[in-house]
């Protein structure tokens, strides 16, 4: 009953949204050029689903915008890829802060207010990413093989039921299995933290900004992003190759260069 009621509310909200023309925003752009030059640049790039891009500016920053009628488009993977294509094409010509896919605002006036309100934060963030590329590094391992190796290492300090329980029942067995599982998880996490430490030491000379996400899935143990100065790109790639050679048990996937998707820290309210 409660689910049905909430479902109907969601449907009503979705219907209301689909009837409104909105503005979709793609990126905050550092615009050293004139408004006309920027407009010409945006005319050369198509927005999602063939829409026309235009710029709204405040002082030396602008935002790339296009109209969006949600009844015309379905928000799916293809549109998300198209959105990324727009940001990628723009980033080839200007320094920008990508906006999260699916950010809509009601009108140009609201976007202008947003530029004024967050001007200092945008400018500061643009300086942080200027002349830099983002790279992504995913580290894979064979979960079964590696967790078994760690399990064997833990054997020497293996816990026994008698350490914790004076009786032996199905419920104490269950608790014991949970204790072992938690210890294994803690050991796996420690392994990943040591790997992060090792990567950070190798990259110390290049000094990139880094963000690490641990244990994304059982197989992807590390999902890292790096913000690297453009002139250190080759050195960075070579260093990752060295890290790969030093960790033969791990598989690495390095991608880039990307616009600085993971290094925009501004929350628009």
């Amino acid at each position, binding site marked *: 009953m409660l689910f049905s009621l909430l479902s109907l509310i969601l449907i009503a909200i979705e219907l209301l949204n689909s009837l409104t023309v909105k503005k979709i925003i793609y990126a905050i752009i550092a615009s050293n050029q004139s408004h006309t030059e920027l407009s010409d640049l945006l005319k050369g790039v198509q927005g999602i689903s063939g829409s026309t891009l235009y710029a709204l500016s405040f002082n030396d920053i602008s935002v790339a915008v296009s109209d969006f009628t949600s009844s015309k488009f379905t928000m799916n993977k293809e549109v998300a890829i198209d959105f990324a294509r727009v940001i990628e094409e723009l980033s080839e010509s200007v320094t920008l802060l990508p906006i999260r896919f699916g950010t809509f605002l009601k009108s140009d006036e609201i976007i202008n207010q947003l530029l004024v309100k967050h001007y200092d934060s945008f400018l500061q963030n643009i300086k942080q990413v200027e002349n830099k590329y983002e790279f992504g590094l995913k580290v894979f391992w064979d979960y079964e093989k590696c967790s078994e190796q760690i399990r064997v290492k833990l054997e020497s300090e293996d816990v026994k039921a008698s350490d914790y329980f004076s009786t032996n029942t199905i419920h*104490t067995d269950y608790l014991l299995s*949970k204790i072992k599982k938690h210890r294994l998880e803690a050991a796996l996490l420690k392994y990943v933290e040591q790997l992060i430490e090792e990567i950070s030491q190798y990259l110390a000379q290049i000094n990139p900004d880094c963000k690490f996400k641990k244990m994304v899935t059982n197989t992807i143990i590390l999902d890292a992003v790096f913000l690297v100065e453009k002139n250190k790109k080759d050195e960075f790639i070579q260093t990752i190759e060295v890290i790969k050679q030093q960790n033969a048990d791990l598989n690495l996937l390095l991608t880039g260069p990307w616009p600085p998707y993971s290094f925009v820290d501004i929350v628009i309210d």
Partner: protein
Amino acid sequence: MNENKILLNSVAMNEFEDEIEKIENTATSRINATPDNASHGLAKLVLTLIELIRKLVEKQAIRRVEGGSLSDDETERLGETLMKLEMKMEELKKTFNLTDEDLNLDLGPLGDLM
């Protein structure tokens, strides 16, 4: 992924595709909210929050057991309760056709909930 973006790859392509598919499935279920799957989405949200609380309770319980502060009777009841809770969660996941990977929330800059 655009192939010219891959700078170094020692991952078997099928393994890579499997993992990306797992991540994509989570993202797709978030994007494709339709009237037909709205109640499924609500069930997923509610079960995710319950799973978070269950895991917190489990961690706290293990800490107490390892600390040796519980009597035999308390340990027995705790084990029984946690076991039943996990079984109940498995039942609910089957009912709503959800997997462990589904029971998570992307909190943006804060990362995943679990």
